[in-house]
């Protein structure tokens, strides 16, 4: 293992921002793995730390395939993490919306360019990501439909679901999208949490990455075979909205099965405690994404359901 500073930036008064990379093995650029890019992605940082720990052990046992190099960048924006912010603290820009970056541009464009310079040209790119809507997910691998994506490769992570997202204009500046344009097979791995650590899904994510690297011939690791993934198009998920605002009580969370007519959640009057709305499942299926916060705004998404295919 080789630890190095892949990018650094001086601040007016704060300690220098150092972005660290851990290299395992030597040779062909096989896989690049990136952890937290936003300051609240603590789970993503944790997953990466566990992965680095596992790779250190594998390397010590000679289990990195010779001629293959893995680069792990556990954290990009700890400058924000250290002060409790999600985005770049000076101008609130999102580094994950600055790719491929520009080395003569604004600060966050320069950071993105510095990271991308190191992260590109690998065969596989894996990012532990978080979504723009707060809430929790069934662990899954997400890919952008760029024309270069390969769902069959995403299957090899052995996570229960692979989600294909049609990129919107705003997605064209993410790491995942730009990796694909630069001919890296890019995958975003979503676990259950972001701001908090969830051990179970973190372990699942580490195993998924090790399983994938094994199947791609980058490491040698004995793993159980995982799931055979269901490939879903994001646009085909059924969004269930809240017709009311107030205190949110959830009855069904990610991974749970629902039947048409089931009460998924209810909204209470925030002053009087009465149930003002019951959120009913419009279809049979499995909850893929779910609102988690104790308060809900009218029209917010309560959950997204993967419809049963036999319907």
């Amino acid at each position, binding site marked *: 293992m080789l630890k190095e500073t892949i990018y650094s930036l001086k601040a*007016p008064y704060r300690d220098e921002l150092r972005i660290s990379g851990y290299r395992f093995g030597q040779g062909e650029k096989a896989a690049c793995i990136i952890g937290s890019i936003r300051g609240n992605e603590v789970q993503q940082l944790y997953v990466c730390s566990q992965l680095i720990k596992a790779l250190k052990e594998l390397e010590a046992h000679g289990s990195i395939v010779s001629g293959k190099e893995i680069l792990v960048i556990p954290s990009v924006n700890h400058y924000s993490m250290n002060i409790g912010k999600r985005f770049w603290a*000076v101008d609130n820009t999102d580094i994950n919306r600055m790719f491929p970056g520009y080395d003569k541009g604004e*600060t966050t464009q320069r950071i993105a360019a510095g990271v991308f310079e190191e992260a590109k040209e690998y065969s596989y790119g894996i990012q532990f990501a978080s979504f723009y809507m707060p809430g929790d997910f069934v662990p899954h691998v997400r890919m952008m439909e760029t024309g270069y994506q390969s769902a069959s490769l995403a299957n090899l992570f052995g996570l229960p679901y692979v989600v294909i997202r049609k990129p*919107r204009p705003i997605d*064209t500046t993410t790491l995942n999208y730009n990796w694909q344009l630069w001919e890296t097979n890019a995958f975003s791995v979503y676990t259950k949490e972001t701001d908090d650590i969830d051990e179970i899904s973190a372990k699942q994510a580490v195993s998924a990455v090790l399983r994938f690297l094994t199947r791609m011939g980058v490491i040698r690791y004995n793993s159980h075979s995982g799931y055979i993934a269901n490939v879903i198009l994001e646009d085909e998920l059924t969004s269930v909205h809240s017709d009311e605002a107030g*205190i949110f009580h959830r009855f069904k969370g990610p991974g749970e099965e629902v039947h048409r007519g089931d009460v998924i959640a209810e909204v209470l009057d925030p002053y009087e405690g009465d149930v003002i709305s019951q959120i009913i499942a419009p279809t049979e299926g499995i909850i893929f994404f779910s609102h988690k916060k104790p308060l809900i*705004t009218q029209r917010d998404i309560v959950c997204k359901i993967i419809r049963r295919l036999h319907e």
Partner: protein
Amino acid sequence: MIETVTSVKLPVDESLLIQKNRMEPLELTGREKRMTIVTGTHGDELEGQFVCYEVLRRIRENMDCLKGIVDVFPALNPLGIDSITRGIPQFDLDMNRIFPGSQEGVFTEYVAAEVVNDIAGSDLCVDVHASNIYLREMPQIRISENTATKLIPYAKLMNVDFVWVHAAATVLESTLAHSLNMMGVPTLVVEMGVGMRITKEYCYQLVDGIFNVMSELGIWTGEVNPVREPYVSVDEEVGFVNADASGIFVPAVPIWSYVEEGGHIGDILNPLTGLIEHRMEAPCTGTVFTLREYPIVYHGSLIARVLGGVKIC
């Protein structure tokens, strides 16, 4: 007449309201042209507040000169404006990156869709922005190159100092202006002044331009102040100055000044050592139309933009 275009209930005893003021002639013929003025997508940009006020004030005082419909939306992002937040509080995406919105999306996307619906059918829309809290901008209109032919004639009527025709970028396809332009509503994006402040002279300048264009469209028959002819530039003419060090920036020239290539624009200082970290110089000879207002800078922070080869100040 003040109308609520859309509303969404917030968790505790409050509704998010998007309101507009529709000014129309006392007697309608049904053939009136309609112009829409919007601002406040970015909650920290306030120059448009005075513009909206002044447009409505001038119309109110001469209602008999109003021959068309003027819709004024002073606050597309009321939660942001009232909490000094650029974006929509608790929402990750910049509001100007979620248009045309969606009835199926989260409430912010729903609000965006309702706003677009309401503006649809206007003969012209002006979206007033005020840079951000870091940079001051001379009054300018920004146009994507793929809409230039259609929009430049309108932009020339607006009394701005110049018009910047920039390259199209996929990410900008989710702005309000792009969405409206694609729907056939010619929409001009004005950038002027600086965040969190109101610069009255810029506001009066733009309001004169708005009445000039209203007069051209047949919406206004009242007197119109003379307007200036803007300089129309393309990307190649714009030189960028980005900080080469982190520290405290102090300018050496005022905005809208003419500088020679290599001329002194300002310095990045280190108050701990008492030394100059970096002397910032002009990349080309021309006019400074963007200048850093907020002193704290990092490597890369934008310091200035220079319109190369042009002396228009």
